[in-house]
């Protein structure tokens, strides 16, 4: 059977090639997050080593698969040691596939330990997908923009789907659990009473602004899948930048950062352009280069004829 052209085209959407340099960068970010996770982002997970097994409430997956025993002191500590030890070679590209699998398995057990005591957190879906897909990708060097791979493209596409699902289905969960009236409810008021900061508590005096922000959130969550279908790169990066700004705002307002989600989301960005060696080598000459660039920019309008519209210079990033 010959595949239809449309089917071929849609299959191509899953396999848009990605440069290998991005894999090295994402491995580093994922490993770095694991170190941040246990001592800053979710330091309470290791606290479960002291919680008696009677308060352990096994999840569906632990009840079905007999490979997740009731956490004990040594199981919690042991999982953490294996996780941290394996994440270092993964970060620095030593046998990254082998250590990637160890990290993925250990982190999954770490999540079982975290989520089995009466509360499941929901910001790590994309990150878990990332951990399980990184080991399927080849060994890679930072800054490699020459070698392109469809395998990697598929993997990051799935991570991106996970990231977008987190937004899109969060809107649906609001409708399911909160009903359509969620957008006009006092959920943000409640959130700020519980965990407001100096940047947000003043909002309690303006409930209409909080309600407006709820409308905005649902609108952006429902529209988020657009990012998967935008061909223009700049527009795409713009949307991703908006996502990051959204998380910054939420963090300032209620101190919830969704850091692992933001790490997974980084695979939207052209991280293959980053080459740490080059950055370090060029660092001493950087001020001079910026000065030369600015000078060159200033010189441009002088060369154009008067009366001709001068395009606004892009801000130096």
């Amino acid at each position, binding site marked *: 059977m010959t595949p239809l052209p449309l089917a071929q085209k849609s*299959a191509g959407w899953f396999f848009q090639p990605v440069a290998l340099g991005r894999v090295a960068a994402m491995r580093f970010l994922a490993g770095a997050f694991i170190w941040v996770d246990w001592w800053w982002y979710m330091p309470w997970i290791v606290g479960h080593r002291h919680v008696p097994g009677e308060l352990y409430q096994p999840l569906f997956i632990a009840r079905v698969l007999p490979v997740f025993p009731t956490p004990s002191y040594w199981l919690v500590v042991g999982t953490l040691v294996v996780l941290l030890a394996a994440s270092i070679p993964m970060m620095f590209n030593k046998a990254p596939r082998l250590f990637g699998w160890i990290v993925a398995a250990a982190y999954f057990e770490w999540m079982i330990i975290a989520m089995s005591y009466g509360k499941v957190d929901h910001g790590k879906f994309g990150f878990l997908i990332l951990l399980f897909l990184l080991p399927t990708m080849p060994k890679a060097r930072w800054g490699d923009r020459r070698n392109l791979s469809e395998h990697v493209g598929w993997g990051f596409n799935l991570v991106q789907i996970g990231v977008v699902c987190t937004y899109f289905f969060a809107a649906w969960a609001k409708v399911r659990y909160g009903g359509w009236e969620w957008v006009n409810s006092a959920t943000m008021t409640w959130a700020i009473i519980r965990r407001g900061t100096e940047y947000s508590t003043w909002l309690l005096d303006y409930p209409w602004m909080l309600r407006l922000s709820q409308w905005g959130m649902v609108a952006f969550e429902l529209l988020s899948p657009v990012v998967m279908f935008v061909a223009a790169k700049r527009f795409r990066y713009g949307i991703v930048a908006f996502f990051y700004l959204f998380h910054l705002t939420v963090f300032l307002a209620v101190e919830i950062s969704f850091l692992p989600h933001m790490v997974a989301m980084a695979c939207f960005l052209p991280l293959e352009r980053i080459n740490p060696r080059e950055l370090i080598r060029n660092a001493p000459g950087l001020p001079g280069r910026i000065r030369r660039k600015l000078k060159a920019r200033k010189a441009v309008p002088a060369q154009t004829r008067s009366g001709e519209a001068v395009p606004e210079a892009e801000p130096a990033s």
Partner: protein
Amino acid sequence: MDTQYATVRPLGRAVRVSITLVVLALVTATTFWGGDDFFPFAPFKMYSSSMELDGWAGSTRVEAVNAEGERFKLTEDATGFRRAELEGQKSRFIENPELLEFVAQAYENTNPDKPEIVTVEIIERRYRLEDGHQTGEVTEVVEAAYTREGADA
């Protein structure tokens, strides 16, 4: 160095697209019908409940009294058991307050040098809201309490 372009062969393509579709199907299914129990495929219900504009916004905490008669808040750091986890299992604790014994044990495992706990209480502080504004009206309710047998505090 030569540029390489690695393509996925047709069989690999079929397998990979299937994996993507299975992940999507699972996350869609749990979003519509499943619950937290199906983690990692759980509905993304961060702050998804509707809070009434007129009503009570509650904030739960756990307090303990130790053998020396001191009353203090049992924080996450002191027990390793989180407020949200306590709230998640709250119906269990209300039904069977003796389970609070294990919260006391968690505290003692975490702080072996501190005096033992005699009493544990779950307390909810409720803020009255009207049209989304805080009215300033606050009440506190002890939802579950447990005192160790033989303790005289």
